[in-house]
Structures are given as structure tokens and as C-alpha cells.
């Protein structure tokens, strides 16, 4: 069941291009992934043969568009083992999904004096919306601390999940540390006090099997563009009963049932949350990405990434780098943040780009985490199903070049 990354690379046309005349070594998939030909072709086919608006028209072409769009929804439901397609709201991505929960569930359930619990390792898109909700409602925003190894301080959970906790928002996999968090334990803790859990699966969904039933999560958000799909599409999974009772998010076409001069009634879920013409081709592309990954199996993707991340961490440490996040590969994904002595991450990224190596340098949209780690910035190499040990070797060689500049 293991993956052959050398074969998989052939599905991704971008790898036929060169970077500064050299082999493209793309190590920034945690930011956005590359796209396989299958996904690109699916979107082209949609525009060439199925394009029409959805949910509105009565002709055959529109039925094809509708079937493609709703088929993508079913694919996404299956991908995270959701019981019903009605739980799958299409959004623009993780950020919009989290904000949907903030506006729709948050504003109608969170009051002054309540608590919202997030963690020290959240991405800004699972942090700022909750900071804003806290400011709007007078609730208190709390941060579950992490250890120096980048794991949640689950031993402190009793102090942080209280009768006042209305929402726990947590990432399933950190985009900086790679940490895979014990989300089920957090879900159990917040459910015991009558609160809800929102899971940021932007990094997890592309890289490991995700089962919303096993996690017992109330909401879960992920983005198409990080999992081989196009930009402009994403999913908010919500438990059906919660979505049913939530007020709408955006108002407009498609989300209504009937509109009168002074009031309206709402469409069924998930359509209640999909106002206006959605990103149809992008959703269809996301469905194709889900099929692409499902064919390979997420178990195999995860196994491949464990191997490549373990190799990368070994070689980085041997090269003198400080690597952040959990040491045990079982508890982490393939986003590997590091620092290399005197070579500042920005300088590193510029220099190794000349060698064809693309990494990210900076705060990775997690400024509170950077403060916690006590570093202004890190470099991050993140691996995916198309990365090979050769890519790791190219990274290490390019780092030697960078070190040479500052020697």
C-alpha cells in the first residue's frame, strides 16, 4: 500500500518546470500543494462540457452542473466519514469555515463571561476569529499552553476547560510544529461541560485519515488548495442538528426558501449557508482531489510522509539545525520547522531558492506561537506525497551553500 512518489510526481505537471534552471524542489505544500493533472483536467472538463449555474435552472446542462457540484459534496463527506452530505457546507476555505462558525454559532451562543479556549499553536485563521468573537461578546479568550516540544499541555485541561467554556477551537495538525493533537480528548472534555469543539483540519485533511465520528467533533474545517485541489474551495463540516438550529451566515440568493418584504425563511442545510453562486468549478475540482487522494488512500499518504519527515529531521539535525516540534514521528506530520544558526530564515529562503528549493520563512501565520518558541521566525520545509528522499538531499545540499555565505 506504500506510495511511489517517483510515479506520483508524473501526475503533477509543475514538476516538468525548472526553478532557476534546476530541478524544482517544492517544500512548501503546507502553504499550498501542487495540483495533479487529474484535478486540472476535471475542472477543464467541467467548463468545457458541464458549465451552468447550480440549483436554479431546469435544463439538462444545469442538471449536469448540479450533479458535478453535489457529487463533489458527497466525495468530501466520504473523505472525512461524515454520515450525511447535509453536514458538508462548501466555503472558500478553512478561514471562511471558521468565520462561519464564529458568526453563526458563536454570536448566537457565546455571551459575556463565557470562555473560548484555543491553543498556543493556532494558525491566525483559527485565532483571530475567536479573538474578535471574544471582543464582540465580552467572552474571555484563553490559550491552552504547549510544552517546549510543541505538544499540548493536556495535564492542564482541567484548569482550562471549565463550566464557562463554550467553544474549544484547536488544530488537528500544526502547520508549524507538525504536532498531531489529541482532539478526541479535547472533544470529550468540552462536551462534558456542554460546549462545542471546532477542529482546524487545514493541515490534517491533506496528510492523514480524518474521521469526524471518531474525533466526535462538532465542526471541522479544511481547504481544497492544500490537498491537491484548486484555491477558492473548502469545507465546513457541521453536525446536522447544530447546522439546523444555527442562523444563516451570509444572506442572498440560494440560501433562502421564501423572501417577503420584511422577512425570509431559510433553505435546507447545507444550502442555508451557501449564499450566492458558489465556486462551482473549484468545488468540482476539490471533489476530484478527494478522489485522487482516496484512490491512493490517506493511510498510504500518511505512511509516506512519516518516512520522508523522519529522514528530513535526521538530516537537518545532522546538518546542525534546530528542529521544532515533537521528536516522535508517530505524533507529528511532515511540516518541519527549523533554524540554522547564523543563517536567518529569510536569507536562507532567498539563497536556497537559487538552488531550486522552495521553503517558507517567517512566522507562518502563528505569531503567538513564535513568541512562545522565543524565535522571531523559522524556516519550514513541508513535505507531501510527491516529495522524495532526493528532495531532502537537495534541501540539505542547498543549506550547505547557505551556510557557506555566512561562514
Amino acid at each position, binding site marked *: 500500500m506504500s506510495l511511489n512518489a517517483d510515479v506520483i510526481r508524473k501526475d503533477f505537471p509543475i514538476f516538468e518546470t525548472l526553478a*532557476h534552471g534546476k530541478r524544482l524542489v517544492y517544500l512548501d505544500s503546507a502553504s499550498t500543494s501542487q495540483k495533479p493533472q487529474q484535478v486540472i483536467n476535471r475542472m477543464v472538463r467541467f467548463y468545457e462540457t458541464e458549465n451552468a449555474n447550480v440549483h436554479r435552472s431546469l435544463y439538462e446542462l444545469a442538471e449536469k452542473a448540479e450533479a458535478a457540484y453535489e457529487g463533489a459534496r458527497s466525495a468530501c463527506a466520504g473523505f472525512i466519514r461524515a454520515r450525511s452530505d447535509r453536514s458538508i457546507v462548501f466555503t472558500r476555505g478553512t478561514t471562511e469555515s471558521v468565520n462561519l462558525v464564529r458568526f453563526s454559532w458563536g454570536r448566537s451562543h457565546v455571551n459575556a463571561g463565557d470562555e473560548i479556549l484555543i491553543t498556543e499553536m493556532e494558525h491566525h485563521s483559527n485565532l483571530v476569529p475567536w479573538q474578535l468573537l471574544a471582543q464582540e461578546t465580552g467572552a474571555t479568550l484563553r490559550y491552552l499552553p504547549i510544552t517546549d516540544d510543541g505538544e499540548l499541555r493536556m495535564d492542564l485541561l482541567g484548569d482550562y476547560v471549565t463550566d464557562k467554556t463554550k467553544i474549544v477551537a484547536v488544530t488537528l495538525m500544526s502547520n508549524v510544529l507538525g504536532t498531531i493533537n489529541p482532539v478526541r480528548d479535547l472533544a470529550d472534555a468540552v462536551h462534558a461541560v456542554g460546549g462545542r469543539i471546532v477542529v482546524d483540519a487545514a493541515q490534517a485533511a491533506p496528510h492523514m485519515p480524518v474521521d469526524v465520528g471518531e474525533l466526535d467533533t462538532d465542526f471541522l474545517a479544511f481547504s481544497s488548495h492544500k490537498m491537491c485541489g484548486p484555491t477558492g474551495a473548502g469545507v465546513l463540516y457541521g453536525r446536522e442538528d447544530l447546522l439546523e438550529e444555527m442562523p444563516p451566515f451570509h444572506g442572498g440568493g440560494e440560501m433562502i426558501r421564501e423572501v417577503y418584504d420584511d422577512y425570509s425563511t431559510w433553505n435546507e442545510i447545507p444550502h442555508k449557508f451557501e449564499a450566492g453562486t458558489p465556486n462551482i468549478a473549484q468545488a468540482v475540482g476539490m471533489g476530484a482531489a478527494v478522489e485522487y487522494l482516496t484512490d491512493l488512500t490517506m493511510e498510504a499518504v500518511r505512511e509516506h510522509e512519516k518516512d520522508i519527515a523522519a529522514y528530513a529531521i535526521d538530516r537537518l539535525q545532522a546538518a546542525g539545525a534546530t528542529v521544532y516540534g515533537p521528536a516522535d514521528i508517530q505524533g507529528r506530520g511532515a511540516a518541519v520547522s527549523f533554524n540554522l544558526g547564523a543563517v*536567518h530564515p*529569510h*536569507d536562507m529562503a*532567498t539563497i536556497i531558492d*537559487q538552488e531550486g528549493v522552495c521553503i517558507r*520563512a517567517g512566522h507562518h501565520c502563528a505569531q503567538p506561537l513564535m513568541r512562545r518558541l522565543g524565535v*522571531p521566525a523559522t524556516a519550514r520545509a513541508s513535505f507531501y506525497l510527491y516529495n522524495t528522499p532526493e528532495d531532502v538531499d537537495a534541501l540539505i545540499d542547498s543549506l550547505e551553500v547557505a551556510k557557506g555565505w*555566512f561562514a
Partner: protein
Amino acid sequence: MVRMSLEDLYKEVILDHYRAPRNKGRLDPHDVVLERNNPLCGDEIELFLRFDGDTVEGIAFEGKGCSISQASASMMTEKIQGLSAKESGALAESIKAMMAGEEEGDPDALGDLVALKGVVKYPVRIKCALLGWNTLLEGLEEGGKPRG
């Protein structure tokens, strides 16, 4: 070829100022102190200015960040010390124009600062190079000094 352009960027001068920054540390007493950062990448500068009438009599900085941001600030302090506020402002503006590709930059007037021109080829790094200069412009304003 590729090597050449990189060498431009990391010219000896930049690395030299990065390794051994000039006027690094607090300046006490001072008339103005200003802390600014580059939110996108976390580069930080704390700039101290002391005036004697209209002259920038003392200038120093604290900071951390990449070689470009720190070397640029170091070169700036060397160049600005002893200039009038008006001249300082004008120089900052012309460095900004050079980085925007609007001005060629006069090698005689710029001296070491010409090394910064290499950064123009790396658009994402321009804001690193300008962090110190933008902070200086704000500092002059805060010190009540008329801009050139």
C-alpha cells in the same frame, strides 16, 4: 550568472555590516526612540536619535532579523550621523526611490549604501531593506524635525 546576482545581494558590505553592526545598542540619553517591525517576517528595529539643534548628533539601533534588515540599519546609522535632519530625510527618501526602481542612485553620494541596490532584484526582500529607513523617517517626524 545566478551566482553573480546573489553576490550582488550579499555583497561583502552587507555581510560585513550584518556580522559587525555599527552603532548597535541603546543610545542614552536620546530625544526619540521608536520601535518598528516588519509584521510579515518578524524583523525588528528599535531606533534611537539624539539631536543637536537641527543635526542628527547621535543615532543607534537595537534589532534582530535577517542580514538585509540589520545591515541596512547599520549602514544607515553610519551615514546619517552628523547630517542635518533635512539631509537625513532626503537620503531616506532617495533610498526608498532607489528600492522602488524610480531612481538609479548616485554611487558617489551613497557610498556603501549602493550595496542595497542588489536587493531590488528580490522584491520580497525590499521591505527588509527599508525597515530602518522608514523608522528613521518616522523618528525625524516624531522629533519635530522638518522633512526635506
